[in-house]
């Protein structure tokens, strides 16, 4: 058995979720090959070669891989797919975008959002917003999986010394082209990789009020998240959303502030190690999953918490 992991990166560094995906790959087989497709991304290939447990790195470098367009990445993966028994990638917007194309053209199923590897054919994945866990057996010769990175611990980023081989690029599909990207600029950790997340809901009341969460987040070195209600109200950008259709997170500490706790939100954070809820409504469903609940007005409790941590 041989596993191919398609690496997510920004042409400069590997995304943290790749380390968790490699962990999942190692639970399937000992031979793990990492594909880095990018443009002027040799630093990424070098980083991948140092990851613990990687057998080989394939590096395809061409302008058409600069922005991970699904059509081009899928064609590249297809050019080598038959050499592998399993093809894995993180279940991020990067992986979700291109991997189903690979599965369809191989005429095999994809198993999305794998949270547990039972054996080489059998995987556990959440359905119905995480309210049900399904154990599924993939019967195809090549198993195509996206990995929910919160389900696996990361492997060490160093300690390996895999060889880097270059892989011939496939022609640009010409179907799509990149125009621009606007990434939310922040000096705080990424939501997907943060150890602590401070998240705000409708109870925050306004965009300006998120400043009190920012002060708390800065004190804790935390990322900032939000419920759908807060995003819909325009308090914060879309990519802050934690939940069924937003980001799935599992930090060491998740502090939910002014979040009532709809099941769609819980789907995105209930695997956090410790959950704190601060809400003035003591009936709020968030308290049913919180390890520590504080029934209080967030506008006094949050600044007080920030102060207490100083």
């Amino acid at each position, binding site marked *: 058995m041989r596993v191919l992991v398609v690496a997510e990166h920004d042409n400069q560094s590997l995304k943290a979720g790749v380390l968790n995906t490699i962990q999942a790959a190692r639970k399937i087989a000992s031979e793990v090959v990492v594909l880095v497709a990018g443009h002027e991304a040799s630093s990424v290939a070098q980083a991948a070669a140092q990851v613990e447990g990687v057998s080989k790195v394939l590096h395809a470098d061409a302008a058409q891989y600069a922005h991970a367009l699904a*059509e081009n990445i899928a064609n590249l993966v297809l050019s080598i797919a038959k050499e592998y028994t399993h093809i894995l990638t993180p279940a991020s*917007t990067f992986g979700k975008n291109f991997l189903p194309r690979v599965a369809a053209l191989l005429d*095999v199923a994809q198993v999305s959002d794998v949270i547990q590897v039972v054996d080489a054919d059998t995987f556990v994945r959440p*359905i119905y917003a995480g309210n049900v866990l399904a154990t599924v057996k993939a019967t195809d010769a090549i198993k195509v999986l996206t990995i929910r990175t919160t389900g696996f611990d990361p492997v060490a980023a160093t300690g390996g010394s895999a060889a880097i081989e270059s892989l011939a690029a496939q022609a640009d599909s010409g179907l799509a082209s990149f*125009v621009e990207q606007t990434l939310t600029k922040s000096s705080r950790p990424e939501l997907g990789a943060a150890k602590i997340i401070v998240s705000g809901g409708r109870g925050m009341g306004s965009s300006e009020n998120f400043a009190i969460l920012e002060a708390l987040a800065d004190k*804790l070195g935390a990322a900032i998240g939000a419920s759908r209600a807060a995003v819909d109200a325009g308090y914060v950008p879309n990519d802050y959303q934690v939940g*069924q259709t937003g980001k799935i997170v599992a930090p060491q500490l998740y502090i939910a502030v002014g979040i009532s706790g709809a099941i769609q939100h819980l789907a995105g954070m209930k695997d956090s190690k410790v959950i704190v809820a601060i809400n003035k409504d003591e009936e709020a469903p968030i308290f049913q999953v919180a390890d520590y609940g504080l029934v209080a007005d967030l506008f006094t409790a949050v600044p007080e*918490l920030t102060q*207490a941590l100083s």
Partner: protein
Amino acid sequence: MKILVAVKRVVDYNVKVRVKSDGSDVDIANVKMSMNPFDEIAVEEAIRLQEAGIATEIILVSLGVKACQDILRTGLAMGGDRAILVETDEEIQPLSAAKLLKAVVEKEQPKMVILGKQAIDDDANQTGQMLAALLGWGQATFASKVTVAGEQATVIREIDGGLETIAVKLPVVVTADLRLNEPRYVKLPNIMKAKKKPLDVLTPADLGVNLTKNLVTLKVQEPPVRKAGVKVADVQSLVDKLKNEAKVI
């Protein structure tokens, strides 16, 4: 241009599903079923493109049991022109759904297919991408804004960390994210009118598609229940618990 919109009948998003006692499947007998919320957004987007003079005809397609006609009628009441149900009682996995939709696309020749980015039952997030691949088309997934000019669509996509804009040649598959639009409410007179709109019923065999089950569900179970913890009296005791009991700060 013609736009085809794929809509799925799913357990209503307000229903908390239960697992059957033998763990073989989820129990969806007698629960409320609705159109997948992301597919409603897809239908709305097609209607807006028609109102903007870009789409000429909107064809709604659903795959599954006879009762899928209900959601097709809902889509027709929103503003779809006609509907197709590919009827089967068999389970339809994403790969088979993509093959059925491909066959319908080849018959109808739309310039754009819009689907929800994922169905809220199996949360697979695959069908649109698979369909695009099987057709050899470009794709624009997780769309939050769609603009069509000439033979090209410019789409703003929701990605981890922000937004990305891509230009894709027509024909194209677009999958709708949450903030593409806010679907309209259906008005009663339109529900009456929708009853008269054409709704064709086909079978997978009519389309020459063999439904395969590449994935076998061995069992389903409820995840471990997270127990409610304790209420703390004030901020100071919260800090104390986090430092000394949970040891996370």
